[in-house]
């Protein structure tokens, strides 16, 4: 959600008879900036349009509306951003309902305590957690499972706005609350979370439906222009995950190794055979963003064949001359050369095949925006004026497209916490995610 929900598909799905509407609107995918800065990823206007569509569709028929990863990264500022949008819609459309806000921003004390207890593991590729890393984070969130959604519904919420949540849990919460097995429900949620990405042609901007059965479920495309096939569902199950058939959830591990797919109609596929290996004690994934500095950038193009043939020397020379004028600690320079190895860096097998023109993105990281800006200004002057033997031009090395020449892009964040903690008690599945209930609009 937040990219422009297809309203025709939503209407069709509702007409086919729904029990609940779910929407996922966030991820770690866009980097740590959003979690660290507290800013939303999506456009406010599009988010308002999308929330408005599903709120009206759900409330008109008494269907619970569950929105997870509201505002993107799951911090309190993100949840507040989403709450303001919901309240604005309610005022403008004259809607009234009970709203649950489920918080996912965490007090650092809990994670420190779990780390001291030896109950924290890094996600693959992530360094081990330390107390210093926890302390350095601007903001830490926990990724909730289905329980807080179920709790909010049982306490009378008609609309749930939740912070950081497992995308599967948003869609699994209602069926689990009606007695469907957690594994099957979570598997269904994994398929619905990207909308019609499991359909052909795939897109995250269209709706997808699931019909739950005793021990299977059917995936249905409400849009007649799309099909759901065994292959389209299976291919999507591996999308953006490390393992194709083992996927971690707070309560256990989903296992798709025995799953069967059966085409049940033109637009429908039945899925069965999901296994679920429950943990003895549930786990929660924590995500924390540390500010590593502030960035300023200089962007330019080079068309000069003599300079292109000496790019490494040019970059090293500009870097060295600039840093020799910098008094402060904690300043880093980084160069991306498009047309050579801009996308792949050291992974580029064709680094030697440089085009007739290259784009150069020079970045400065410093401990304040002021210092980053000043160093980038020094760098820009070196970039245009750098001299070398064999040069055929002077003080004209780069074509800069912008005035201002130096652009400040703000703080840079890193996911310093991306770790899974074993809980001390099952009750923490809900107690870590406090629920705030509020009446919205006039009754």
């Amino acid at each position: 959600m937040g990219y422009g929900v297809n309203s025709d598909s939503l209407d069709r799905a509702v007409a086919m008879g729904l029990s609940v509407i779910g929407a996922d609107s966030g991820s770690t995918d866009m980097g740590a900036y959003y979690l660290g800065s507290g800013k939303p990823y999506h456009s406010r206007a599009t988010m308002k349009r999308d929330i408005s569509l599903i709120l009206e569709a759900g409330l008109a028929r008494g269907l619970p509306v569950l929105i997870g990863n509201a505002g993107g990264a799951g911090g309190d500022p993100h949840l507040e951003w989403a709450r303001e949008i919901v309240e604005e819609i309610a005022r403008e459309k004259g809607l009234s309902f009970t709203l649950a806000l489920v918080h996912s921003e965490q007090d650092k004390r809990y994670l420190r305590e779990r780390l001291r207890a030896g109950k924290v593991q890094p996600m693959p590729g992530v360094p081990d957690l330390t107390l210093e890393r926890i302390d350095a984070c601007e903001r830490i969130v926990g990724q909730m499972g289905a329980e807080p959604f179920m709790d909010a519904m049982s306490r009378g919420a008609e609309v749930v706005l939740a912070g950081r949540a497992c995308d599967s849990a948003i869609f699994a919460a209602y069926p689990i609350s009606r007695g469907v097995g957690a594994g099957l429900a979570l598997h269904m949620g994994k398929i619905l979370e990207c909308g019609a990405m499991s359909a052909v042609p795939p897109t995250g901007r269209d709706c997808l439906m699931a019909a739950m059965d005793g021990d299977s479920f059917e995936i249905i495309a409400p849009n007649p222009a799309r099909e759901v096939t065994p292959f389209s569902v299976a291919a999507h199950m591996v999308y953006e995950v490390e393992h194709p058939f083992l996927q971690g959830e707070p309560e256990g591990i989903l296992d798709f190794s025995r799953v069967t797919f059966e085409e049940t109609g033109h637009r429908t596929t039945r899925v069965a055979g999901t296994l679920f290996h429950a943990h003895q004690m549930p786990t929660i994934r924590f995500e924390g963003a540390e500010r590593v500095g502030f960035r300023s950038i200089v962007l330019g193009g080079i068309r000069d064949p003599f300079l292109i043939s000496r790019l490494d020397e040019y970059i090293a020379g500009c870097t060295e001359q600039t840093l020799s004028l910098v008094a402060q600690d904690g300043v880093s320079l980084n160069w991306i050369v498009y047309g050579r190895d801009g996308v792949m860096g050291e992974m580029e097998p064709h680094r030697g095949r440089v085009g007739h023109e290259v784009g150069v993105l020079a970045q400065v990281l410093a401990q304040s925006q002021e210092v980053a800006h000043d160093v980038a200004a020094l760098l820009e002057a070196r970039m245009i004026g750098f001299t070398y033997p064999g040069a055929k031009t002077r003080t004209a090395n780069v074509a800069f497209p912008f005035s201002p020449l130096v652009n400040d892009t703000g703080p840079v964040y890193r996911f310093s916490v991306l770790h899974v903690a074993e809980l001390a008690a099952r009750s923490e599945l809900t107690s870590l995610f406090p629920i705030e209930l509020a009446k919205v609009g006039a009754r």
Partner: protein
Amino acid sequence: MTNRHLIDFVEFLFSKNAGPYVITFDAIFKDEAAYDQVRRSGVFNKATLARLFNVPESRILSIHEYPAGRVIKFNIVRDTSSGDFGDRSVFGSQLWAPLISLEIPSESIG
């Protein structure tokens, strides 16, 4: 018969994030025959992939096959996490191009 390249067998090639520290690469095959032939060829191994992407084998986290999705998938640990200073691809996208020309040995018949 000359060797063919991976691009001749696939419907799609992807690279995307599997979390901020891992990039997952997916080769989704045209049909079961293509999937089976490439799987049997054994070219998706740590040594070959490490050489192709110029990374140490220790950064090839895992390689998986999933027949129902006609997918062979492998994972590379990033040297810079998504969005950190020095990252080149926040979504982990566009890093699959070297796979295009991965050579798939032809199979002898009989």
